[in-house]
């Protein structure tokens, strides 16, 4: 109980740090935010009034406190491009990104599980060497180039799928494959390693000695233990999926929050940049906290050690 309270406090501290980092980013930006808001044609009096309205004449710590209050309330300000609240802009694009990330996660899990099972059926053989080199090679392929290659092969040459978009399931397949490949390859490495350790453990040998079949030893005894590090690792990968969405959405012209971030940077729409960044970092922090709680619930050993 005490340990989980401490973890909750740490999560809050990390979130506070994320708020501080986004504030520093705004603070260090070259140029005057009031000037940016007012536009290039504004007179110096108009800019001065806006500075006062935005609280930019206040001490830095007051500005930081106000910034934190706004972010916690979910008020990310108004987009400099559209004039609409950034929260609405994110809300309109979020479902697309979440759908893409969820499909990528499913592909990654399917690949990791099947690769790890395949390798565990032939321990120490060619299969594990193939997975080893294959996964390293996949990790060396940048997400955006993988996306372009998938478009080239499946949309341009074979004409099996549309080259852009993520609305229908057939459109979603290529971007999800590009986005999920890295996570699938690295999770497969982690799972294969923990599974081969578990299969050599004493409790699995005992079970086999008592006459358990390979399947039973694998699914009933080895897998539940081997899954714990892989699940922990997989949750850490959620951040990578959201970060990779920035490039994947750009390659496949998907109108999600990743591409919104890129175009906002190009237009120097800083309220939008801060809004999306804070949203992603806060989601990653909260997902990791949730994963931690889930692992504690699943694994009694972690509860005891705190």
């Amino acid at each position, binding site marked *: 109980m005490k340990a989980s309270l401490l973890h909750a406090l*740490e999560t809050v*501290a*990390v979130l506070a*740090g*994320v708020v*501080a*980092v986004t504030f520093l*980013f705004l603070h*260090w*930006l*070259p140029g005057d935010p009031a000037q940016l808001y007012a536009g290039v044609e504004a007179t110096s009096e108009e800019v001065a009034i806006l500075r006062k309205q935005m609280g930019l004449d206040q001490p830095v710590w007051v500005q930081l406190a106000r910034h934190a209050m706004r972010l916690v309330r979910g008020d990310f300000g108004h987009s400099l491009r559209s004039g609409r609240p950034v929260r609405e802009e994110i809300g309109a694009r979020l479902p697309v990104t979440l759908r893409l990330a969820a499909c990528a996660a499913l592909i990654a899990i399917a690949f990791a599980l099947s690769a790890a099972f395949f390798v565990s059926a032939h321990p*120490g053989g060619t299969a*594990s060497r193939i*997975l*080893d080199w294959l*996964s*390293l*090679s996949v*990790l*060396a*392929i*940048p*997400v*955006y*180039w993988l996306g*372009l*290659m998938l*478009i*080239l092969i499946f949309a*341009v040459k074979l004409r099996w799928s549309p080259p852009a978009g993520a609305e229908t399931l057939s459109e979603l397949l290529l971007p999800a494959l590009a986005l999920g490949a890295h996570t699938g390859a*690295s999770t497969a*490495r*982690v799972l*294969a*390693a923990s599974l*081969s350790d578990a299969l050599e453990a004493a409790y699995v040998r005992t079970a086999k000695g008592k006459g358990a079949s390979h399947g039973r030893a694998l699914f009933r005894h080895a897998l539940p233990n081997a899954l714990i590090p892989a699940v922990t*690792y997989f949750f850490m990968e959620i*951040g*990578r999926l*959201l*970060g*990779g969405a*920035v*490039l994947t959405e*750009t*390659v496949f012209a998907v109108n999600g929050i990743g591409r919104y*971030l*890129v175009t906002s*940077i*190009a237009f120097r729409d800083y309220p939008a*940049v801060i809004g999306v*960044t804070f949203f*992603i*970092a*806060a989601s*990653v*922090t909260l997902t*990791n906290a949730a994963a931690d709680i889930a692992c504690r619930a699943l694994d009694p050993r972690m509860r005891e050690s705190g």
Partner: protein
Amino acid sequence: MSTITAGISPQRKSHKRIAVGAFLTGLLVFAAVFGPVLVSEDPLAIELERSLEPPSLAHPLGRDALGRDLLARIVHGARLACAVAFGGVALGASFGIWLGIWAGYAGGIVERAVMRAIDVLMAFPGFLLALLAASLLGPGVPSLVFAVGFFSFPAFARVARSLAASLKGELYVKAATALGAPRRRILLRHILRNAAPPLIALVSLRMGGAIATASGLSFLGLGPAPPTPEWGAMLDSGRAYLWLSPRLVLAPGLALVLSALGFYLLGDGLGRRGGP
């Protein structure tokens, strides 16, 4: 990082991957150093009338949309990729390792405070961190180097901290402390020197990530301005011709993949051995 080093039994032979990794990395460094001398074509010379000319003996990779020699651009791009990756990782590694061993050796509240600050940065997906850093400075090569450094230092700090914290308990460190050696000397001679092998493996792994990250930023338009031959920017301009001449996307992409794979194999192999 753990993404790559985690996995498969560590006692597996590492010679082959070190050899292949060293070969690919050597190829990249060779292309970066001697390539621009061996390929005499100007990577910036525009010949619009020879736009998208297919490969020939004189121009093995053909020409791009503006009629520039593709091979010359790849080779000059290798120089830029090397410079950005080496510069950025050197920046991130030196700052991160120093912060990590300092915090790990100091222990107590200092260690906790530094680690929580690292946790905050780790909450941002790595590429997002690089994207923010690059957008602070605006497009250009210095911004790529800074972004790569900023994106890699938390990982170095984290690994160096845990290495320093475990080395702190070693007898020779305790002896040096008891003999009154200055902290600087303990950190450099006793802790850094013994933590070096895994850190060098991490440098190699991060170099692979740095090449992909820097090109990713250029792909999004945050790299050096247009005529500069940069692999990510070449992919971005080449993807408009994916139908007409896919080699504009294939060539820089393969260069990226082989370079990153070289560093990954080298780092993975060195990591398995417990360092060089």
